[in-house]
C-alpha cells in the first residue's frame, strides 16, 4: 500500500508543493502587511495568486488529458493514445495494459465470429435470420446460393413461392415440414424464434432441399433393394420357366414319359417354387406393416433374462449371457416390438456363433441419459465384406434364411426413433440397437 501510494508521488507531490507554497506566501504576505511592510505583503500575495493559477492549470491539464483519452477509447480509434506527461507514468502504463487487454478480447471475439460464420457456411441447410420487420439480418452461404442476389426482405426472396414465404414469416416455432420451392423442388423447412439480449425478436428459418440429402440416400436404398429383389425373384423363377416349357413339350409327346414320373416331378417343383415366391411376397408385406410403437414401462433385468431364455432354445450349445446395467433399470419401450427385434438379433448371433468350438453370445443392455443401448456380440466368423447389405430385405447369407430378420429389426429401431448398426469385432461381430427413451 505504501509502495503503491508512493508510485503516484510525482503529480500529487507537485500539487501538494504548490499548495504549500500558496499557503506560505498568503501567510507570509499577511505577516509582512501586519508588520508594516504592505508592499512586500502585496508582492507575496501576487506570487501566491500566480502559484495558485499554475496549480489550477496543472489540474486542468491532467483533466483534459484524461478526457481526451476517454474520448479516444469511446470513438474506437485503433492507434494508441498519446502518452501522458512523465508525471503520469504509472497511470500511462496502467492505461496501456487496459488497452492491450481490450484489444486481445476484441481479437478473440473477432476470431470467434469468423469461426461461427465459417461454421454456418458449412451447414448444407440454407439459414436466414429475420428481424421483426421481415428484413434479412443474416444468412449463410447455402442461403445466398438459393438466389442470385439476397433481397432485403425475406418476403421478396425469389426461391420461395410468395404465399409460402408469408406463411414462414407469420408462423410460430415449427419443428419442420415439407414445402415446394418456386422451382418446383421439394424442401424441408423449420422455423425457430429467439430473443436477443436487448429484447428484440429474431426468426431463424432453415431450408434444406430434399433431393440433395435424403433423396440420394433413399434412392440408393431403393436401388439396392430392387437389385436384391430382382436377383432373388429371377433365381426362384428360372427353373419354373424352364420346367413349364418342358411340360408343354411332354404334353405333346406322351410316349416320352410313359409313367408320367418326370411330369409329376416337374409339376411338384413348379408348385414348390410358386409357394416359395408367395412366401416371399408375404414376408415383404410383413416388413411394410410394422405397427406404430406403443411404449409402456418395462423392467429391464427380467425382460433381458426372458429374452436370453427364449434365445437359448434356438441352440442349446450356444452360451447366451444376459447383463443389465444398471440392474434395477426400467424404460418405456414397446415391449413386443423391441422383443421381436432383439430375438432376430439373438437368432442371427447364435447362428453365426454356432460353428465356433465354444460358441458364445453376449447380450447386454445399458441405459443412460440418452436412452437404451442393447448390444448382441457373437464369436462367429464376422460380417461379410459389404456389411451394410445385411440390413437389406431378402439379403441372406444362409441357405434357410428368409433374409428379413435384420431388416425388420432395423425398421423397429427406426420406428422408435433409434438405430441399428453392425460392426466387426476382433472376434465375431456386434449389433447395436439404440432406442432413445426417458428413464423412469
Amino acid at each position, binding site marked *: 500500500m505504501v509502495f503503491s501510494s508512493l508510485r503516484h508521488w510525482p503529480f500529487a507531490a507537485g500539487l501538494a508543493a504548490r499548495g504549500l507554497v500558496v499557503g506560505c506566501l498568503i501567510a507570509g504576505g499577511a505577516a509582512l502587511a501586519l508588520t508594516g511592510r504592505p508592499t512586500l505583503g502585496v508582492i507575496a500575495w501576487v506570487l501566491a495568486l500566480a502559484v495558485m493559477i499554475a496549480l489550477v492549470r496543472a489540474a486542468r491539464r491532467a483533466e483534459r488529458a484524461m478526457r481526451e483519452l476517454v474520448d479516444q477509447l469511446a470513438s474506437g480509434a485503433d492507434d494508441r493514445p498519446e502518452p501522458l506527461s512523465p508525471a503520469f507514468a504509472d497511470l500511462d502504463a496502467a492505461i496501456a495494459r487496459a488497452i492491450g487487454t481490450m484489444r486481445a478480447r476484441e481479437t478473440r471475439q473477432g476470431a470467434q465470429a469468423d469461426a461461427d460464420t465459417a461454421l454456418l457456411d458449412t451447414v448444407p441447410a440454407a439459414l436466414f435470420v429475420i428481424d421483426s420487420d421481415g428484413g434479412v439480418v443474416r444468412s449463410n452461404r447455402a442461403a445466398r446460393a438459393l438466389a442470385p442476389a439476397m433481397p432485403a426482405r425475406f418476403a421478396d426472396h425469389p426461391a420461395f413461392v410468395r404465399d409460402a414465404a408469408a406463411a414462414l414469416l407469420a408462423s410460430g416455432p415449427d419443428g419442420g415440414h415439407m414445402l415446394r420451392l418456386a422451382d418446383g423442388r421439394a424442401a424441408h423447412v423449420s422455423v425457430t424464434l429467439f430473443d436477443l439480449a436487448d429484447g428484440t425478436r429474431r426468426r431463424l428459418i432453415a431450408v434444406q432441399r430434399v433431393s440433395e440429402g435424403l433423396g440420394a440416400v433413399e434412392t440408393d436404398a431403393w436401388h439396392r433393394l430392387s437389385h436384391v429383389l430382382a*436377383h432373388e425373384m429371377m*433365381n426362384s423363377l*428360372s427353373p419354373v*420357366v*424352364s*420346367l413349364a*416349357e*418342358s411340360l408343354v413339350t411332354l404334353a405333346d409327346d406322351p410316349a416320352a414319359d410313359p409313367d408320367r414320373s*418326370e411330369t409329376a416331378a416337374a409339376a411338384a417343383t413348379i408348385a414348390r417354387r410358386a409357394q416359395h415366391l408367395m412366401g416371399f411376397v408375404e414376408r415383404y408385406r410383413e416388413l411394410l406393416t410394422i405397427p406404430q410403437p406403443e411404449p409402456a414401462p418395462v423392467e429391464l433385468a427380467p425382460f433381458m433374462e426372458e429374452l436370453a431364455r427364449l434365445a437359448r432354445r434356438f441352440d442349446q450349445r450356444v452360451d447366451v449371457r444376459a447383463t443389465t446395467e444398471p440392474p434395477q433399470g426400467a424404460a418405456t419401450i414397446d415391449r413386443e416390438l423391441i422383443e421381436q427385434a432383439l430375438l432376430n438379433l439373438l437368432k442371427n448371433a447364435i447362428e453365426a456363433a454356432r460353428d465356433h468350438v465354444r460358441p458364445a453370445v453376449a447380450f447386454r443392455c445399458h441405459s443412460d441419459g440418452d436412452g437404451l443401448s442393447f448390444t448382441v456380440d457373437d464369436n462367429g466368423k464376422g460380417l461379410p465384406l459389404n456389411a451394410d447389405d445385411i440390413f437389406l430385405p431378402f439379403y441372406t447369407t444362409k441357405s434357410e434364411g428368409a433374409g428379413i430378420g435384420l431388416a425388420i429389426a432395423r425398421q423397429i429401431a427406426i420406428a422408435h426413433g433409434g438405430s441399428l448398426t453392425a460392426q466387426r469385432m476382433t472376434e465375431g461381430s456386434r449389433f447395436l440397437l439404440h432406442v432413445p427413451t426417458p428413464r423412469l
Partner: protein
Amino acid sequence: MESLCRILLIEDDAAVVQAIRLALRGVAEVEAFADPAALPTSLSLESFDAALLDMNFRPDQRDGSAGLDTIDRLRSIDPALAIVMLTVFGGVAIAVEALKRGASDFLLKPWRNDRLVEAVRTATALTTRQRAGAAMSLEAIERHAIVRALARAEGNISRAAAALGLTRPALYRRIEKHGL
C-alpha cells in the same frame, strides 16, 4: 438319331438341375454336382462334351468368384472343354470376367429351353473342334521344332538330336514320320 452328348453341370439349386435335365432330354446326358468342392480330385473331363457352370454355390456367395475359380480349375484340367456360365440378370460384369477367363458362352437365368439346347450344342461342337485342333497342333509343334533344330545344326543329325534331347534313331524315325 444323333448320339447323346455328356454335360458336366455344377449347380447348387436342385430345382435348376431338374429343369436342365428335363430340358436337355434327348439332347444330352447330364452329370450334376452341387458344389465344385464335391468334384473328385482326380477329375477326368475327357468323357464330357461341355460344362454348364453356375456362378455361386452357397447363399453367402454373391460375387461369382466361386464360379470364376471353378472356370480356372476346369481349364487347367482340360483347356479344350467348352464352358457355359449360368448367370443371373444383372451379372454382366461377372459374365465378361468369365469370358475373359476362358468360358465360351453364358446363359441368362431364367433361360428359354431352345436357347439352352442351342448353347449346349454350340459348346459341344466347340469342344470337339478344340480337341481335334489341340491334337493337330501338337504334331505341328513337333515338326516345327525338328525343322528348326536341323537348320541350327546345319543338317548335322547328331547335333540336332542332342539339341532336341533325342537319340539319333529316334530323330530319324520322326523325320520320316513328318516326311522331312
